[in-house]
């Protein structure tokens, strides 16, 4: 009687086992990788905005500093978008007939706010504070990328927890601070905290730094 399985079936079974193993691992890993892809984090998606505002022109050509419009970055948790009257401060004098600025003039005279599309959004549970980051010398570009080269603003970093912890775990190395401006100068130098959980925690990586 002929063999029930042909001679190649052993190899086929082995290959099948390997493939099933790879698939099982991929099924686990795929979602973890997938959520980190720009497809989900919305990196490099340049959004259309109600006004064709061009940072290249305002920052590079005119030399206007970030804080001229995003005034609250130094004093509040929110950097803020400029109110319409800030735009009109200049544009009532220059380009005051430009059709590109029609939505701004409409907003100014009708009193209805411009509806900008949010580009940089954080997870819901995070209390991020602009002022302390600016005060400690984190450059705007660090999180927002080279905005001055963008025609339409886009996200250049994932802004996920990994990204935040990257600096919070080792701000000195990441930002090249001198000792005087070091975060840890305020409190203990090496606040390692292995109690209870076994995780090394410093004051900047303690949960309530961002989650309250």
């Amino acid at each position, binding site marked *: 009687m002929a063999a029930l399985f042909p001679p190649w079936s052993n190899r086929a079974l082995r290959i099948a086992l390997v493939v099933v193993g790879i698939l099982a691992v991929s099924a686990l890993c795929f979602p973890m990788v997938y*959520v980190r892809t720009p497809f989900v984090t*919305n990196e490099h998606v340049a959004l259309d905005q109600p006004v064709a505002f061009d940072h290249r022109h305002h920052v590079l050509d005119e030399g206007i500093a970030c804080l001229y419009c995003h005034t609250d970055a130094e004093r509040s948790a929110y950097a803020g978008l400029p*109110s319409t009257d800030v735009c009109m401060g200049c544009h009532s004098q220059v380009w005051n007939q430009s059709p590109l600025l029609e939505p701004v003039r409409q907003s100014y005279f009708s009193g209805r706010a411009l509806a*900008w*599309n949010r580009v940089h959004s954080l997870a819901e549970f995070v209390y991020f504070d602009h*002022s302390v980051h600016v005060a400690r010398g984190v450059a705007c570009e660090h999180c927002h990328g080279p905005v001055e080269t963008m025609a339409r603003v886009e996200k250049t970093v994932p802004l996920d927890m990994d990204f935040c912890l990257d600096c919070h775990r080792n701000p000195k190395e990441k930002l090249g601070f001198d000792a005087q401006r070091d975060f840890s100068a305020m409190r203990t130098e090496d606040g390692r905290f292995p*109690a*209870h959980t076994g995780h090394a925690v410093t004051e900047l990586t*303690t*949960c309530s730094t961002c989650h309250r």
Partner: protein
Amino acid sequence: MAEVFELHLRRRDLGKLVAASLALSGLTACAERREKIFPYVRRPAGVVPGVATHYATSVVRDGFAVGVLAESHEGRPTKIEGNPEHPASLGAAGVFEQASVLDLYDPARVAGSRGPLGLTSRESLERELSAAFGRGAAPWLVLEPTSSPSLLRALAALRARFPRARVSFHAPLAADARYAATERLFGRPLEPQYRFERATVVLALGADFLHDMPLSLRHARDFATRRAPGPAMSRIYAAETTLTPTGTLADERIGLAPSELVRFAAAVLAELAKQGELATALPDGVKSALARGAPLGETEAAFARKVARELARARGAALVVAGPGTPESVQVLALLANAALGSVGRTLSFVEPVPSGQDGALPLAKLPDALRAGDVGALVFAGTNPVYSAPELALDELVARAQSSFCLAHVENETARACGSVLPEAHYLESWGDARAGDGTLSFVQPLIEPLRPSASALELVAGLAFGFPASTHEFVRDTERARLGLGPASADIGFDFEAEWERNVQRGFVEHSEFAAVNPTLAPERAVPLLEQALSAPSSASGFELHLACSPTLYDGRFSENAWLLELPHPLTKQSWGNAALVSSRTAAMLGRHTGDVVELTHGTRRLRAPLVILPGHADGSVTLELGFGHAVADQLSHGVGVNASVLGVPFGTVARVEVRPTSAKADLALTEDHWLLAEEAVAHELTLASYTQNPPKYEHDLAAQPSLLPSFEYAGTQWAMSIDLSLCSGCNACVVACQAENNTPVVGKDLVKNSREMYWLRIDRYLTGNPDAPRVLQQPMLCQHCEKAPCEYVCPVNATVHSTDGLNEMVYNRCIGTRFCSNNCPYKVRRFNWFDFSGARGATLLQRNPDVTVRERGVMEKCTYCVQRIRRAEILARREQRRLRPGEVVTACQQTCATGAIAFGSLDDESSEMLRRRREPRAFAAFAELGTRPRTRYLAKIRNLDGEETGS
């Protein structure tokens, strides 16, 4: 709440839904939710989005102002704090001040005007009101008692324009007895001012002076300065019918029925009169009147002798305080005792009465006859609810006899239902106004927000009637202030910058040094004789029980009846939530053969009231206490059917009356939180007497770090947060509980879930009764997360959702929590709360009250006290921005900030200057359940009672 989750699905439909959800679940990641950003068009000056600002304003109740600071986030008020500079607050805020912000966003607020002939616009109603005032019979205006110079000016103008107009002031808790007593003894009504920081021995006669007097917050601050254990510690005696927060802090207290209270006060005064030096102060007529009183029981008489002895020993630094709800006779006896003790000018002074405008005002009791006679044209109720609080006047039926009736109301209350027209009343955070504090300090009410709906304040209404609508109350209050400063019209200011003065005062919230000057009245003690003879010779053995009406510690007089925070707030002593009850002693309950939860029927004349019974140990025997403010009758409202309305018995507040009490077989469904979150049998709170404490300091387990632990050790360094709570200073008044709720977005769950022990308070106050069950000692212990260094909750969490921070906080990470509830099971202090349902799902305007710095928790998540981590991190961010260290005392928790006695101290263990650390080093500091090895960061200080030798009665 639970009905939301009772879906009626068939098995197959459920299967379909599950399959569809699974299949589509991947799609959610495909399209990111796009948010919009709406910047201002024109940015308001002074607004920085994300940075809270505080404005000074005032909370006014019954004509007395308390200065507060209201926190505003982008223009919406979210939280009330005390105004540290204001003399009636000194930085503290009480339960009612804290909760008042929720009323602003109450969904039950009167939505729009409602009038006859289909009038619905505010303007048309105002026109109608003005017209009604001028035609027909004479109009009648019913107002809350007021001290507002602007309102009084408007009333004067109103009377000038409508000379026939009649005005009544109505407040269910009006403290007329003290004015009657001062008028009798001094010839004119006066406002007593107590100085507890100077008082070494205090006798409180039915006086909850830490809680329900116009200057209570100040009293509490002053009182606390004399309660540190040591030779300067004051001694407090309390004689009261029901157990009050002040009574729990008294060194000794005795429960006395209202009639006994009069005789007790007389006995104390008679004892004082026997002392040689004091005897001369009292005329013989008074002495012989005092002798008329029926003798007290043996215990009471011994207590009276002892109190008199102690008071006499502290002559010049003694103080006798009679509560606002005591009858005139007790007030007179207290004044005479103070006079005999030489307190006047030292611990007691007098100023002019704060509420004014009473000249020419008619008592409300005359309104029914006028209505029956058809003698009332336009009848206007502004900010009062007499249909609810004075049912004996039968106004609900009689209001229709007025030619027209108007009600200015915050919510559709009983009076609004009875009136033909209703106007929405503006909240104090929406309106301009002024008022005087309990010492006469002129305070301003400043709005923080445009009225959410078209509405008017009582001042706006009266000013509109007097000068024509629409009235600008801003201008009106400014003009009053100009007149007070003696300035003419705006153009005539020469050499005086009114604008600068006005802005300074409004910014501060009050006018500095504007309190009334102390007056020095001449005492005429013999005028007390007829009153005392009558009060003391009243028969004491009539049948039935004595009825004692009290201010509700949660709803005040009922004006907060739609405030969900206050409805759910457990009573400080009975721990009853969502309702009130007839409070009796255990002996009285045994006489009735009934127990807590049984319904009894109270009868006064022809009036009946069925109320649930609650046994309150320490209550006077033979009397029943009912708290006002509950039992509202307006259907579809939150307060409908919550508790019983004590006013139905027709006994005015502050009078002694007898009621028949008949047991029934009915049972009531009470939400008592007393046995919720029960801790272990062993004592978790300690108390000592001053003598034993100074001679033999206790040895509580101090060296907690030496305890063995299985957990890895960690060396804490740098800023380390910790809290010390002095049980000697906690009266259990609940202000911290509401402050925590407002600060931390803690939800209200409703009566059904409270009964299931699912209330969500991060901070609760545990009340312990010890000693004699009939005269117990009371210990109030605020219980909140202890932030254990070896926290039992942390190592049982499978997902690390509760972990420790380097600065010693036990952190709760909501986004990690999967709701196993292992942590709360393992917590020995039972301070963790689980969101069984979507409690945060408030709708509409209530959302605007939320603190944006604190996560609103969702269903299935554990939560607990964070030591106000949002305030810690905010202070740290500020310090880092300014390149400095945290300043001592820079971080203040919400509970600490509002506490009037300063029972709660918070700070860092590395800050040697902190009050928290100083307290922690006292020998009486102890850690709750220290034996468990949790090493809590919160320490309690044992309660110290300053006894004089033997204790009476226990």
